């Protein structure tokens, strides 16, 4: 009964506030009527009695408020009132509302985008069951994950910490479904790959360990859902179909589920094939060679209850067994564990560092936006001080007024957050579809998930409270009597004095943040431009690349070499072609081959005795000429350097210094390769960049194609002709030689895309953030400048009336904002220079000690100041003292 009663009251309060209010009203009226009855009995006339009764009752509105409070439904109903009031107030000043909402939308949108990418790359685990226990093995010594097949088998058999270990290699093949052969990327995987991951096919079946019976025994493929969709048009009859891979027949067993796209978060294979097929897929078989670390990554689920430290100890004991048993091939077999998604520590730290940096920067953007909105709010609160004073005088509590301000702030922040999130979703959709490097299946699906929405909501709320809190002190210190009496905004006059106010500090901080962003984006852009023109050790301009792998069309051995010579000859015959060179893998093309080399005297060729680990390029005689790599000393190769003549090599200058001490001593001297071959140095080439733009100088050796054949090949065609025309001429020439060979043709500058990719991303990201920072600064300075002009209109009017010059007027009105701009810019520039040091790790040749960058920043900031103060300055100058003074 009692519970029911109190429940009824609760429900009424919540859902029928007007009923409750009407009842309350009636009850109070009845009270006053009863009192008036009594007073009338004591001799007063009715009207007087009623008046007295009302006075005796006290402040009816105040008691009604208190009753509401005692009902607890208070917060909700007054919250609703606050909201309605806030909406009304904001609708009345659309300019302010639009400015505030769009500022916040930009800032929160930027944060949502950066967080989504962070989430997709780092926070979100691979989309496989129990991803939390999935680890990749990393060699403790040199932080890579490559493992040889025999070592893999030993690790898999002998460890006791993993449920299973699987491995994969990324390969590029010629894929022919019976029409136009294309290149396709795939994973060559150990037979237990799918079982170790615990995933199930979308269609058909996967292959298993039991399907393998030695080399070339399992001609099966599993294709990815995306490849099935785009190349087989969702044909369910694809299971069991035979396709040609590198001219060998393979049976498609099944289709992987749509949510599974390999074991890296950014590399999406088209198919999976068993590793025992290596010979047919890659044209070589190193499954029995312990020294060939060909498996890109070995990973597995850790057994429940095993800690990472225990697993590492276990792996290291297997490792030391391998070191003892195979001293020639296995040196430094210590292990550490990493997450597989970002290729472990290969990319992990760099990507994490960059993303953390971006997150910090976009956080700063949001802070700057909050500072901006905070000062806008403070200005508004000052403008509304009369309203606040009136409300206070009429008995409203300060708490209630503050709640109103916060409601406004949170309303703006939520709307801004929603708009920002919508914008970021559009942007992220595009980003998810983006393949930054055309020849690689690299992309990152960054579609936002619940985590992103939650973060955006929290950020919006937090920033709402943050900038809503700025005018609190102002409202708490409002003295209603003073304000109402003085008839103008009395308190504000005090605030715009010489004292440093909170708003000044906010503005300086904001400009400093913007300065950091502008500086670092300029540093990045400049670094990118410079790296396009830096010394690569080859000349990418006026060169076209045609890369292919002859095994994709079934060539090997002598047939391959003959074909390669035919290709060179027929391309050289194209009019306008200056020279044509051949290289096994193009430098800075995203791949690379390395090998340990030994001094000529070393007898025991184990890894630990190696003199250096060097980059290997197999080239045709004309390569240096075609690539624009200059020879420092000695000679290039000729076609006479073949299997019947002594083994020779051209090394780069660093190689010469590293192994032989000096370039002159290197020439004519001998060194040993991994397999023990003694090689004579016949020439020395200039140093270059081979794998990454930011790499430390690396030693490299160039070997003649006839002595070190390779079916992987890239033709470098140097010509001044229009690349478009030349490309089609090259394509038709090559097709004339063999139509079944898939060839990828692009200019060398385009081919550098993958090497420049990190710089590109950094530059675009910083550029966008820099532009946003600049916009925020403009609105911030604009806000302060126009506010200070409008507050001092009367003063300016008097000054003009007394004969002040235009210059003096502008100085009075805008001196302060401009001074703040100068201080903030200086601080920002200084911090930006410090931040640029970090950038140098991502963008090659990024440096802040560049007069162009420094003057660029100064120019940009002054331009910002000019832009932001232009309109307020015009207003200050157009003050008409007569009108102004008459108005007051």
């Amino acid at each position, binding site marked *: *009964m*009692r*519970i029911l*009663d*109190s429940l009824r*009251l*609760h429900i009424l309060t919540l859902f029928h506030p007007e009923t409750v209010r009407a*009842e*309350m009203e*009636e*009850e*109070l009226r*009845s*009270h006053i*009527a*009863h*009192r008036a*009855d009594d007073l009338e009995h004591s001799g007063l006339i009715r009207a007087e009695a009623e008046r007295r009764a009302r006075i*005796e*009752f*006290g*402040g*009816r509105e*105040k*008691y009604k408020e*208190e*009753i509401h*409070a*005692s*009902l*607890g439904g208070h917060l909700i109903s007054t919250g609703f009132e606050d909201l309605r009031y806030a909406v009304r107030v904001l609708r009345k000043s659309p300019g302010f509302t639009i400015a505030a909402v769009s500022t916040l939308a930009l800032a929160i949108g930027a944060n949502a985008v950066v967080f989504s990418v962070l989430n997709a790359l780092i926070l979100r685990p691979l989309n496989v069951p129990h991803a939390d226990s999935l680890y990749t093995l990393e060699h403790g010594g040199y932080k890579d994950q490559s493992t040889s097949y025999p070592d893999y088998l030993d690790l898999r058999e002998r460890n006791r910490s993993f449920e299973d270990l699987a491995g994969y290699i990324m390969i590029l093949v010629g894929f022919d479904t019976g029409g136009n052969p294309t290149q396709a990327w795939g994973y060559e995987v150990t037979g237990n790959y799918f079982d170790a991951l615990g995933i199930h096919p979308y269609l058909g079946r996967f292959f298993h360990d039991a399907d393998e019976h030695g080399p070339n025994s399992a001609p099966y493929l599993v294709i990815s859902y995306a490849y099935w969709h785009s190349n087989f048009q969702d044909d369910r009859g694809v299971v069991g179909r035979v396709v040609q891979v590198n001219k060998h027949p393979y049976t498609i067993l099944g289709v992987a589920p749509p949510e599974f796209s390999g074991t890296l978060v950014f590399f999406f294979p088209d198919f999976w094939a068993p590793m025992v097929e290596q010979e047919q897929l890659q044209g070589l078989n190193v499954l029995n060679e312990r020294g060939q670390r060909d498996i890109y990554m070995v990973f597995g689920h850790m057994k429940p209850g095993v800690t990472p430290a225990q697993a590492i100890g276990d792996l290291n004991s297997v490792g030391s067994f391998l070191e003892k048993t195979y001293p020639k091939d296995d040196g430094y077999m210590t292990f550490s564990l990493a997450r597989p998604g970002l290729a472990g520590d290969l990319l992990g730290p760099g990507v994490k560092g960059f993303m953390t940096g971006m997150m910090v920067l976009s956080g700063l953007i949001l802070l700057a936006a909050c500072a901006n909105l905070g000062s806008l709010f403070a200005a508004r609160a000052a403008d509304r001080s009369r309203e606040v004073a009136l409300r206070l005088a009429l008995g409203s509590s300060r708490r209630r007024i503050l709640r109103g301000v916060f409601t406004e702030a949170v309303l703006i922040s939520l709307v801004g957050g929603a708009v920002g999130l919508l914008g970021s979703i559009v942007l992220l959709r595009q980003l998810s579809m983006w393949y930054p490097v055309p020849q690689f299946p690299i992309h990152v699906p960054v579609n936002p998930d619940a985590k992103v929405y939650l973060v955006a909501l929290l950020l919006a709320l937090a920033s709402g409270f943050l900038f809503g809190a700025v005018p609190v002190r102002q409202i708490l210190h409002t003295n209603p009597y003073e304000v109402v009496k003085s008839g103008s905004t009395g308190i504000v006059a005090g605030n715009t004095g010489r004292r440093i106010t909170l708003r000044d500090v906010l503005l300086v901080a904001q400009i400093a943040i913007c300065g950091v962003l502008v500086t670092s984006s300029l540093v990045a852009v400049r670094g990118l431009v410079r790296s396009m023109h830096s010394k690569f050790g080859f000349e990418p301009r006026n060169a076209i690349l045609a890369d292919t792998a002859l095994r994709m069309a079934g060539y090997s051995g002598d047939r391959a070499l003959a074909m390669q010579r035919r290709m060179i000859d027929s391309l050289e015959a194209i009019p306008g072609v200056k020279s044509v060179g051949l290289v096994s893998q193009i430098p800075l093309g995203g791949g690379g081959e390395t090998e340990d080399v030994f001094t000529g005297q070393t007898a025991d060729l184990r890894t630990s005795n190696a003199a250096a680990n060097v980059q290997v390029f197999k080239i045709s005689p004309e390569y240096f000429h075609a690539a624009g790599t200059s020879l420092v000393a000695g000679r290039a190769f000729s076609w006479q350097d073949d299997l019947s003549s002594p083994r020779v090599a051209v090394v780069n200058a660093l190689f010469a210094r590293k192994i032989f001490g000096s370039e002159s001593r290197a020439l004519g001297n001998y060194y040993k390769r991994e397999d023990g071959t003694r090689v004579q140095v016949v020439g020395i080439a200039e140093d270059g960049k081979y794998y990454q733009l930011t790499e430390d100088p690396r030693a490299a050796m160039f070997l003649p194609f006839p002595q070190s054949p390779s079916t992987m090949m890239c033709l470098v065609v140097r010509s001044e002709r229009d690349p478009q025309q030349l490309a089609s001429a090259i394509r038709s020439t090559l097709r004339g030689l063999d139509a079944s060979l898939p060839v990828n043709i692009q200019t060398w500058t385009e081919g550098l895309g993958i090497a420049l990719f990190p710089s590109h991303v950094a530059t675009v990201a910083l550029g966008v953030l820099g532009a946003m920072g600049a916009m925020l600064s403009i609105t911030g300075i604009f806000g302060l400048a126009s506010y200070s002009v409008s507050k001092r209109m009367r003063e300016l009017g008097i000054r003009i009336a007394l004969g002040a010059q235009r210059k003096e007027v502008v100085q009075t009105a805008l001196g302060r904002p401009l001074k703040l701009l100068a201080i903030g810019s200086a601080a920002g520039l200084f911090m930006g220079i410090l931040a640029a040091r970090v950038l140098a790790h991502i963008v090659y040749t990024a440096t802040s000690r560049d007069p162009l960058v420094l003057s660029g920043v100064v120019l940009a900031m002054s331009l910002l100041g000019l832009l932001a103060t232009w309109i307020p300055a015009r207003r200050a100058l157009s003050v008409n003292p007569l009108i102004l003074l008459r108005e007051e």
Partner: protein
Amino acid sequence: MTDQAQLLPGTLDLLILRAVSLGPLHGYGILLRIGQISDNALLIEQGALYPGLFRLVRQGLLKASWGTSENNRRAKFYELTVAGRKRLSEETASWNRLATAIAAALSQQPEEA
């Protein structure tokens, strides 16, 4: 009027419960009843009664129903619930203990001075 005492915080609820314990009353009636049982010694602003009344209803100590007053006007009548009666006796006992203790403390003459 001048020798009326200000109410201690929290005591209004107790007075309301006490007033209503003698029979259902409307708000004005409660005010009169408090005046009557306290010999008009307590100063209560009339409106201040209502937040207390609503609070007690919400706590389930009072229940309210509309009826007609002796003046033939519509009025809301309050009466004690079982919980309200229980609360009244507890609060009365604890108030008495407090009052006795305070009175004893104040009437104690210090031995020296």
